């Protein structure tokens, strides 16, 4: 499993170009998340793909050839923070509810909706943690579930920022560090 981050133009059709590329390379995507960045014209993607290092290199290099992709980088193997968020609707009656609440506490999850016959649990964290919670909830009856897919960020000073246009780049230089 390989994790790639890409900065792309925030405009129609870009997701199609990215997913078509993965299809053409016959690489199965495990999860792909897109969201805007602090610059609304640029979106950030985290792509988790079922492939090896060589496949990831091809995906990375081919992604960066797309005009709408500003940067693509394989960040697998680097110090990463990975987060996934899930909403899990689980059936809960009067008897098992206290037991359920205890488990939720152990997993540092939250109850975000309460109904007579069910609860919605919100949990975020690494993939393993969510998978673990899911495992213990299964006997209670998981009625519905939604997951966001992974977002990843390299830790600490390992920055991965979108390239800036040349004119803006010179502005950045003249105004010193720390300014966007």
């Amino acid at each position: 499993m390989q994790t790639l981050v890409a900065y792309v133009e925030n405009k129609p059709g870009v997701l199609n170009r990215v997913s078509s590329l993965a299809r053409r390379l016959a690489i199965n995507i495990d999860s792909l998340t897109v969201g805007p960045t602090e610059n609304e014209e640029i979106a950030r993607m985290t792509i988790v793909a079922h492939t090896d290092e060589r496949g990831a290199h091809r995906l990375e290099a081919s992604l960066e050839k797309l005009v709408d992709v500003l940067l693509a980088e394989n960040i697998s193997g680097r110090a990463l923070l990975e987060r996934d968020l899930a909403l899990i609707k689980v059936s809960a009656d009067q008897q098992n509810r206290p037991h359920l609440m205890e488990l939720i506490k152990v997993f540092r999850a939250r109850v975000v909706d309460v109904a007579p016959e069910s609860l919605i649990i919100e949990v975020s964290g690494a993939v393993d943690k969510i998978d673990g919670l899911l495992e213990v909830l299964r006997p209670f009856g998981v009625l519905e579930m939604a997951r966001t897919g992974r977002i990843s960020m390299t830790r600490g000073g390992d920055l991965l920022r979108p390239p800036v246009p040349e004119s803006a780049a010179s502005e950045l230089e003249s105004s010193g560090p720390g300014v966007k």
Partner: protein
Amino acid sequence: MPITKHNVVVTHAEDIARTVREAFLIANSGRPGPVLVDITKDAQQASAEFNWEASAPKLPPKRQRTNHDQAEFDRAVELLNTAKRPLILAGHGIMVSGAMRAFEQFVHTGNYPVAMTLLGIGCFPANDPLNLGMMGMHGEAWVNNAIQEADLLIAVGMRFDDRVTGDLRTYAKGARKIHIEIDRAEINKNVKVDAALVGDAREVLEKLMPHIQTRDHSIWIRHIAELKGDSAVRDIQTLPDSGHLYAAHVINDLWKETGGEAIVVTDVGQHQMWEAQYYHHNRPRTLITSGGLGTMGFALPAAIGAKFAKPDSEVWAVVGDGGFQMTMSELATIVQEKINIKIAIINNGYLGMVRQWQEFFYDKRYVATPLVGQCLWHPRGAHHCARRSHPHDPRGARIRRNGSHRLPCRTGRFRLPDGCGRSFPA
């Protein structure tokens, strides 16, 4: 699904100018490729102010990659300066980056023999003693044997296409490989390389030049000459006259009569490979052919384009009898625009390249490849039409006639001796 390098839809007339400028920029940058600009009917019919400054391209900023690190570069230099049996695989990228002069210098400094891809033909003079000619499936066997025996392959602006490598499991196992290539996605794609220098061929070669030691590879070059042996003597052109006209005769005469100076545009098929083998190109961009994205029917429209781009050059379209039939409308265009193009139809009565595969790989089941009932002799669209079906037919006079004309050549059909009608060397 787009098959172009990039594609855009324009929905507003005021975006047309900028988009077209962007399209040219994208098409010409990096590894070039076509860009489709799809202008909606609404935008076509609307009107807008045109302003050059306001229509400046606004492409997304791209990460500027440092192409290769110093360690990779040093490794390449080390390999270049220690190889005993080096060989260059020269591709189209050399011409695209305008690296012909730098390449020639590079070759002569290191004394590297050069094998070319189909699209690389012309990047290095055919008459240079270090030029081995085309490699791969349709290249000479001895060239491929030399590649198999090399201890260093220097790939410049090429992508190890399967027509070049054949079976990857056995391809050049004894050789280290250096890959000079502008497209990162091509690195280690088909063939794993020992040093990858990503970048414009000309820039990389110029950067390498000061580090290259002049070396004498005469033992290796002599060995290649031995591999070549008497294959030139056994050439189809030197066979005793059997009364049959072979495509090789036609192409070779074309080469002689045009002094090797014509721009030759080929279609796709056996004649394309015969052209690559028997027309010797000393100058870049004198062979226009469709390469990897090959399609029959390419030659005639491309020849029209070549003539418009180079009105003072002699332009020859070399076409098979199959592909020629796909371009009837271009013949009308040639007449209408009075374009001076010469056409040689290599007529062997088959979709020959497909037939060749049926012969070798499909148990000689010739399905849908014989062509019958053609009417290539009717001089529609040509001022002159000369026909040649025997080696003794006057050659020069017909090739040299002025004005647009066609030269249908009825070449030997496939009942000829083995190897005579195939587009790889006998």
